[in-house]
């Protein structure tokens, strides 16, 4: 059974070289698990090394579980664009895999749903209130409707108790 590299085995150090992680792991007996390189890069929060290592993997031969694991590691490494690409590729290859479908859906590029919604004139009135009264309510949560203060509270949870309906009401913390 192949043994995954342990942190102490590979004597991990943050290094400036993007090729450092594969070089470190080449010295180990378990270099064949290329996802382990991703795991090391993710542990180090080394986005650059993660991206480099991910590029060197032949993803066409990988299982659905590998894709899902790689997406999770990419997110942990801060390699968010890689996470999006891997999730999309994995979801295309494994259309019946629920976790990959969910990952691909959540990480997909933003999509315009409706582009013809009516304007909301009350935005200006609420902003005017905030311009005028921000100093008095600094640090508090407020609910505004058409430029009128409905409720102010120390926390959003307290505010929630007083709001039966949140339609057409601006809820924000005053900074």
């Amino acid at each position, binding site marked *: 059974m192949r043994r995954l590299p342990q942190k102490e085995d590979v004597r991990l150090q943050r290094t400036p070289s993007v090729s450092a992680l594969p070089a470190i792991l080449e010295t180990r007996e378990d270099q064949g698990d290329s996802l382990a390189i991703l795991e090391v890069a993710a542990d180090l929060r080394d986005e650059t090394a993660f991206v480099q290592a991910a590029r060197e993997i032949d993803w066409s031969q990988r299982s659905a579980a590998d894709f899902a694991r790689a997406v999770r590691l990419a997110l942990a490494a801060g390699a*968010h664009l890689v996470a999006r690409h891997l999730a999309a590729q994995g979801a295309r290859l494994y259309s019946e895999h629920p976790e990959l479908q969910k990952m691909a859906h959540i990480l997909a590029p933003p999509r315009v749903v409706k*582009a013809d919604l009516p304007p909301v004139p009350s935005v200006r009135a609420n902003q005017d209130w905030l311009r005028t009264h921000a100093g008095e309510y600094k640090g508090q949560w407020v609910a505004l409707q058409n430029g009128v203060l409905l409720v102010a509270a120390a926390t*959003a949870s307290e505010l929630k108790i007083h709001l039966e309906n949140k339609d057409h009401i*601006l809820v924000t913390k005053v900074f």
Partner: protein
Amino acid sequence: MLLSFEDGRSFAQGACTFLYRPATEEDVTPRIIVAVQIEGLQTETVVDTGGIYLVCAPEIADLLNVDPTRGLGTAELNIRGITASGSLHRLSLTLLAEQGQSLELEATAFVPRLQPNEPWKLPSFMGLMGCLERLRFAVDPATDTFYFGALDGGD
């Protein structure tokens, strides 16, 4: 008046005024703050083209009853120098127009996970990747107007 290209195609379909002030109590640099709806709840967000995703303040996520177990569980994000862990979700975000038409999109949203009694001192943010990246947008600092529009062909 909304913006258009030379050939008459519209660049922006909607416009709203923005607040230009620091985004937090500690912040000293003014930010562009616009009113939006997240999952139907009207709130404010900071335009942050150096950031990624829609960062949904945990208090807002709580008001919306966003269930962390329905998102992708473990993600880390550096937000204005603060490293936060949390979950990723697909949320509806509507840019609210005062002139023209409002625009609703689906965006990737990051919801920070807080420890019990841990305070969150930041507002919500609209980052580029995962949020604003498929929109046209422009700012007129003379009138504090934020213009936005869908790309031709929807998304």
